[in-house]
């Protein structure tokens, strides 16, 4: 069959690839995902190092990348009994100060998110968390060697060994299909000017078409056709 009608095999293989793209590719592209804008200090990999803030104390993390997309700051509570106190989050950079509140009543090992006004421009700034409640606050930090970054965490101005886990996001979940330009811009960051949105778009199209084309051509000429002789 394949020898007499050599197009059948590559046609079926191509159809299978298409089905895979439809069944897995499209849902993957359109699935909503949390949109991180920056991860100054990701959550600990294995071991939490607690950062305890007494009432009135403030932990600050330096050299945090803030962008106009940043709407939400997330810190993490450490394991504790009962509920945690109110926290005030202040993001700042030259010409910008955004304040958010985390209400009291949260529990241990929770993500604590607050909304802040978007910074007007991309900047390197800092994020501070002040305990404005009456009880000690216990936040997640990490001193793991593998979580190495440029930021320094201070408590009331004194540097500490641990770094406060801190994630920034847009605060809304969006799919990759919703923001292809943004994804391309992120891929091209720190790369040479030749790797920009246009060239990456071209690369994506060439790879998406060229790889299946090459494989189907090989299947057609190498497997399906009756040309075993070299």
């Amino acid at each position, binding site marked *: 069959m394949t020898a007499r009608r050599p197009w059948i095999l590559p046609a079926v293989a191509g159809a299978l690839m298409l089905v895979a793209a439809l069944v897995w590719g499209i849902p993957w592209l359109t699935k909503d995902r949390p949109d991180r804008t*920056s991860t100054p200090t990701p959550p600990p990999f294995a071991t939490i190092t607690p950062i305890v803030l007494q009432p009135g104390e403030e932990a600050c993390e330096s050299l945090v990348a803030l962008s106009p997309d940043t709407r939400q700051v997330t810190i993490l509570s450490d394991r504790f009994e009962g509920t945690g106190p109110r926290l005030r989050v202040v993001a700042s950079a030259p010409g910008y100060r955004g304040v958010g509140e985390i209400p009291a009543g949260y529990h241990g090992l929770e993500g604590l998110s607050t909304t802040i006004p978007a910074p007007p421009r991309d900047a390197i700034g800092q994020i501070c968390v002040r305990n404005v409640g009456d009880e000690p606050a216990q936040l997640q930090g990490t001193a793991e060697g593998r979580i190495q970054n440029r930021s320094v965490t201070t408590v009331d101005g004194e540097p500490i060994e641990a770094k406060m886990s801190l994630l920034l996001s847009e605060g809304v979940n969006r799919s990759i299909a919703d923001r292809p330009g943004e994804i391309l811009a992120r891929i091209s960051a720190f790369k040479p000017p030749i790797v920009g949105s246009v060239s990456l778009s071209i690369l994506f199209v060439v790879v998406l078409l060229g790889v299946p084309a090459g494989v189907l051509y090989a299947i057609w000429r190498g497997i399906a056709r009756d040309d075993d002789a070299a």
Partner: protein
Amino acid sequence: MPRPLLGLLVASALLSVAWSVLMAPLQGPDEHNHLGYVQHLAETGAGPDFGETEGFSWSTEQVQWMQWQNLLGLIGVVDGRPGWNPAEQEAFDAFLADPPANFRSDGSGPNPVGQNPPAYYAYETIPYWLFRWTELPTRLLFMRLANLPLFLAIVTFAWLAAGEVFKRRRRPQTIAAGSVALLPQLAFMSGVVNPDILLATVWAAFFYLALVAVRVGPKPWVLAALGGVAGLSALSQPRGIAALVALVLVLAVVLWRARPWTRRMVAWTAGAFGLLAVGVGGALAYSSAHGGAASIGGEVGSSTGAGSIKGFLSYLWQFYLPPLRTMSPQGPPYGYRQVYVEGLGGTFGSLEITYPLWVYDALQLAAAVGLILLVVCIVRRWERIVAHGGQVLVVCVLPLAMLAVLHISAYRDLQGPPYDPLLTGRYLLPLVVPMGLAIAFVCSSLGRRAGSWLGALVLTTFTVLSFTGLALTVARFYT
């Protein structure tokens, strides 16, 4: 060029470029250390040192880049993202505008890969130097792209090796080379800076040359080529020392078939071993000079953590099979599934990017069915197997040589802190050619129609898995 091979080379080249561009910088296995090695070698003419030294692990330039793009804290941490904020780029540019002296050459070590032999790193200094006028992120991109010729060479050697085994029949050649070209783990490793891709290339060449040697006999040029490639294997990666065993076994097969021996034959055989000795000696000397106790020679000669034969056999059994009641555990529950299925099937980044579990389950099932079919085909075609005994021996002994080295090394790792069997799927990449040959053998044994459909299914599945791996990588780093 044969047209099916052309199609496969186009597909594999595009996949390799895609991996080079999409994988976030320094997120390949130990890529930050490999880059540090290349940079120090390129800038100073000497590789970095392993172990306790007075210097820094990486150059100031690399440290600044890793800090401003958040690359070190990103390694293996799924919640981390690389820096993409223009303010971070500006901060890095500000550093580059007024850098300190020796900011590119002060990464003299301790570098965790400083004991590695230098062949791959020397190769990577070429793109490094060609683009020395650019920023380090650009140099890394071109260093990754420099792996492309190596990847294409692997595919070509797989094609040629299949030509030797299957009498240049296009169908099995296409299936064998396609299984190699589209293997997601191999394409991924061709997109990051890591000496494993050179080792895989060298072993692909070795397989082909060994099969040629079986066909043509111990001709001087083939013996010299085998010895040279085996020497290069030792210079590529510490695991490449397995070429020592491989060369002995291959030459034993080739020379046994070429009896009676002539003086010229013996001289050329000695020459082959001489080339191997140059490679092994060079690797040992380099490693000793830069690696201290962790050098290749130091590890081989170490008496600590040697274990026992009984313990090794127990480890080996438990690696591939469920433990017997009388066996004590040998390290963590880590074996065939983790290395052959998950590792070789596809685990990307620094092992944190994985397919959904059901994909590995399906791959394991497919591998099991494939192995059963392989055994059935071997039994059914036993007479032909025996008739091609030399080829079969070569195809079998080379993987055994590499696996023996890997397992002995992993077992020794289990005998001392941190009791971690250092054996991952990418360590099997030197064995992709016999893997492709086995798939092609099964397909060609099933008859034209069934074999064609099965071969096409394998290539299609690998293509889909390749795209899936790239998609998972985009989601991991850029959302």
